[in-house]
């Protein structure tokens, strides 16, 4: 199988769907990067370089640079989706959702419900999440939990190139609004992914490895920290199951519950703020539905309840790391 980066996998997914379906188009700030200026039109290809090459192949009608106007271009995309197009919006950082939240929360997410199931809104909002890029408090948050909270929106959080491509193609073909969260620190990560098109269904967790002692549930970059932690724990004789839910809405609770029923111990790792995040959500569901199986309390590992610091040493300390996962698992094994 071909090796490609997370960034390339995303680019390939968009390009292949644009070739297959003429109604798919890309819109957002700097998605080509030179519109309105002299010189190279495709100067940027998005803030993270994901859409590089699309303008050259598909032209200005299908790769649309916008002004800094999230409420306008997200709204335009939602409107276009209701009229039969399949827009892929790039919201440069998830932190900017505040200026376009109504379009997603009250409009796109509610059309199907409020129009008697007859309206479809096949819009994808691609955005990036995560700390570690020295981008400070307004460009580093992990806000997928806020969208997961809202009925009517599907939420995708891929952790690998394979998942990124298959889930993005599914997002584009999906007839409901999908918020697609890409982790900034994963864009250069490489892994196997087919050159061909494929879809990964939503609501199907990926069990990355199986072990009988502790279940670790993690998303995005935290999946890789979970793998590092599991390697350390394995040397101590502690075998871990690692589950990546891949989508937080819909969420594959069955896979998590099945695993906890086998291991009796659960660690959830979530890079987002500790209150009302995916960790607390999963912990609540497991406590409700698999309490009988638990041999030890559920441990949730998150960032502290504070904005992401700009000072590099503080930012590094802020991000949950493998050592915290190892410590949590060791604690649970004492019970």
């Amino acid at each position, binding site marked *: 199988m071909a090796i490609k980066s997370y960034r390339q996998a995303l680019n390939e997914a968009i390009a292949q769907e644009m070739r297959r379906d003429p109604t798919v188009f890309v819109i957002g700030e700097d998605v080509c990067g030179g519109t309105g200026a002299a010189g190279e039109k495709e100067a940027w290809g998005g803030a993270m370089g994901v859409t590089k090459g699309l303008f050259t192949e598909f032209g200005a009608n299908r790769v649309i640079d916008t002004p800094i106007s999230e409420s306008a271009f997200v709204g335009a995309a939602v409107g276009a989706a209701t009229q039969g197009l399949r827009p892929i919006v790039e919201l440069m950082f998830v932190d900017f959702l505040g200026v376009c939240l109504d379009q997603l929360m009250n409009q796109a997410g509610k059309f199907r419900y409020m129009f008697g199931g007859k309206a479809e809104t096949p819009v994808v909002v691609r955005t990036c999440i995560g700390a570690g890029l020295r981008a400070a408090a307004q460009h580093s948050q992990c806000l997928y939990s806020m969208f997961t909270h809202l009925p009517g929106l599907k939420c995708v959080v891929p952790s690998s190139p*394979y998942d990124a491509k298959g889930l993005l193609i599914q997002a584009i073909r999906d007839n409901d609004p999908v918020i697609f969260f890409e982790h900034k620190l994963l864009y250069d990560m490489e892994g196997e992914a*087919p050159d*061909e*098109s494929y879809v990964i*269904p939503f609501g*199907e967790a990926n069990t990355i490895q*199986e072990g009988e002692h502790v279940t670790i549930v993690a998303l995005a970059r935290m999946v890789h920290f979970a793998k590092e932690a599991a390697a350390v724990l394995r040397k101590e004789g502690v075998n871990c199951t690692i589950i990546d839910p891949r989508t937080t809405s819909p969420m594959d609770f069955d*896979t998590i519950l099945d695993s906890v029923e086998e291991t009796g111990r659960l660690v959830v790792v979530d890079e987002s703020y500790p209150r009302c995040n995916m960790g607390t959500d999963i912990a609540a569901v497991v406590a409700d539905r698999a309490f009988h199986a638990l041999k030890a309390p559920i441990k949730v590992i998150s960032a502290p309840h504070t904005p992401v610091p700009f000072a590099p040493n503080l930012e590094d300390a802020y991000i949950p790391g493998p050592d915290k996962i190892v410590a949590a698992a060791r604690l649970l094994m004492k019970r």
Partner: protein
Amino acid sequence: MSSAITPVTMPKWGMSMTDGTVTSWLAQEGDIVSAGQDLVEIETTKITNVCEAPAAGMLRRVVASPGENLPVGALLAVLAEAAVPKSEVDAFVASFRQEFVPGEAEGPAVEPIPENVEANGLKINYLAVGDGAGMPMVFIHGFGGDLSSWQMNQAALASGRRALAPDLPGHGASSKSAPAGGVEGLATVVGAWLDVVGVAKAHLVGHSLGGAVALVLALREPARVASLTLVAPAGFGPDINADFIDAFRAADKRRSMRAVLEYLFADGRSITPELVENLLKYKRLDGVPAALDKLAAECFPGGRQAAVLAGRLGELAMPWQVIWGAADRILPAVQAEAAPAHRRHVLEGAGHMVHLERADEVNRLIEVLASSA
């Protein structure tokens, strides 16, 4: 007397295997074992399988304990006659350990990479191993499989010859469209692919649906088939487990896929998470569900095999044989009886994937037939 000592080492099953974990011993120190007897169960990232005793003798020393992960070629145990003194066994173990270099037994460090060519307008992906001048050997996988079905056989049978395994159309990394005409159509594509890769004549090995494809080729172009080994082949009778075909096509989650795969093996422990995941990855590719539906409709309409070729076995002019797992739950082993007794080998302790579950014995039978040709 040291010639009477036989080491049991970590086997190499498939080209990517670099190490394995001992899961359990099936014999104890002091047991007398016969050559080919199941000795120790090994788990790799791809499969769990049984390593057989390389020779007859007493299991004198178990060196590797359950749970231990060891590189290919590492010492697992020592077989020797009871007369061999303990001191000699000790010395043998010590010197083996001293001389053992991990990685050496693995062969070339560069793993062969699949290539692809165009045949009859379809992209055909294939893996070629070995570069000997002997008669080439070609392996054709079954419905829903791919060239990795031969991971325990292809490399093992590649000494002195090229061993080639294609992905059938609609499978693996080949074009995701199935040709018309069922088994006959597949045989036409495989024949065209052999032309493109320059194989004029070969030993053919086919499994399941790929067995029927190999049989059609051997009947159609006998001059290009040096010997024919049919492993649990289709085409020997109308019966097939239609539930498997339907459930395999429907399976879209780990749990449902794992349940389907249980049909394939006598021992469900052979099913690794990686096998399940790889099949799901394959089935997610655009075009695969449609190709499988088309093949199933043409090859197994109404849950029966469309092409029953057993009546034509008498026409085969080259050396041929049939190998079947006694516990096959896809194609019943009783279908093997279409072949005369001296040409059929029904192996105990194996299901439909007999070439994985009893790889050593299947490889031996293939090699014996090929050298008789």
